[in-house]
């Protein structure tokens, strides 16, 4: 019983059910906005806006539903390491295998080194 009380005191969800429902409503509204944006034909702004909106949803779920905002920093670091390594895998694979249509002679054949260099150079330039 003592342990139950301790567990409740230290690990009880910090938000109330009503707050969770409001967060769910916010996530739904963001999803509707995403849909609207995807049909709106915003041109070059479309992809960044959609990525920002999905990142906001991602952060809300991780921070408030998974309680990472209120948990030990150790959990945050563990998850961040996974996310950073996942991001590195994503960037590396795209850089290695991205088939640049401007390669007229390529015909679908990828010269990995050249693409990687060009991709990273473009990325550095955009930053």
């Amino acid at each position, binding site marked *: 019983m003592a342990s139950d009380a301790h567990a409740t005191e230290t690990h009880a969800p910090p938000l109330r*059910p009503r707050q*969770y429902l409001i967060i769910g409503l916010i996530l739904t509204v963001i*999803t509707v906005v995403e849909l609207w944006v995807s049909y709106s034909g915003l041109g070059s702004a479309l992809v960044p806006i959609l990525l920002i909106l999905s990142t906001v949803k991602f952060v809300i779920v991780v921070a408030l539903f998974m309680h990472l905002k209120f948990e*030990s920093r150790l959990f945050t670091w563990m998850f961040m390491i996974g996310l950073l390594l996942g991001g590195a895998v994503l960037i590396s694979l795209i850089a290695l295998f991205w088939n640049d249509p401007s390669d007229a002679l390529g015909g679908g054949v990828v010269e990995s080194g050249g693409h990687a260099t060009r991709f990273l150079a473009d990325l550095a330039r955009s930053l």
Partner: protein
Amino acid sequence: MAAASDTANAEHHTSAGVDNRMLLMWIFLASECLFFASLISTYLVFQGESLVGPLPGEILDIPTTSASTFVLLMSSVTMVLAVYGAKHGSQLMLKLSLLATVLLGLVFLGFQVYEFKMFVHEGLTLSTNQFGSSFFLLTGFHGTHVGVGVLYLTSLLIGSTRRNGLGADGGTQIEIAGLYWHFVDIVWIIIFTIIYLIPS
């Protein structure tokens, strides 16, 4: 009895002061980030490479998938309410929310089966083109994760109906299952944006 319970709980704590099962789940989820990152990057690398149809623009049904996305988002809300119920000793809230999460998970899987059947009917299979291969691989693995989650939550739901419920640390067990379920949800948030919303 209280002393035995204290000892049992103390055994689950690491020297860092956190529950080792929670830490294990977070490390597992971190490894899952790499798994899904490789699948998503495969999809992106193959994007626009298909020589024969059906192509994404011709076959993807955004309104239907938006409905399934909404279902999965709502399952995250019911899951977090189940965690709240478990942590606050509300067995009714725990069981109802867990049941709702399982049902919503099944509805999501139903949407996915429907989508896969429609795609196969329209001629898109795993071997049709690069889009088919990478699409079925990515969404199929995500669906498998949802299926595993449904089984995981069902086992907890059955366990919670026993006379002594899930035991003294039932709240932690539900919270760990919740971490897994929310992770499946955030992976879908990314997949939904990349595959369905961003035009190829």
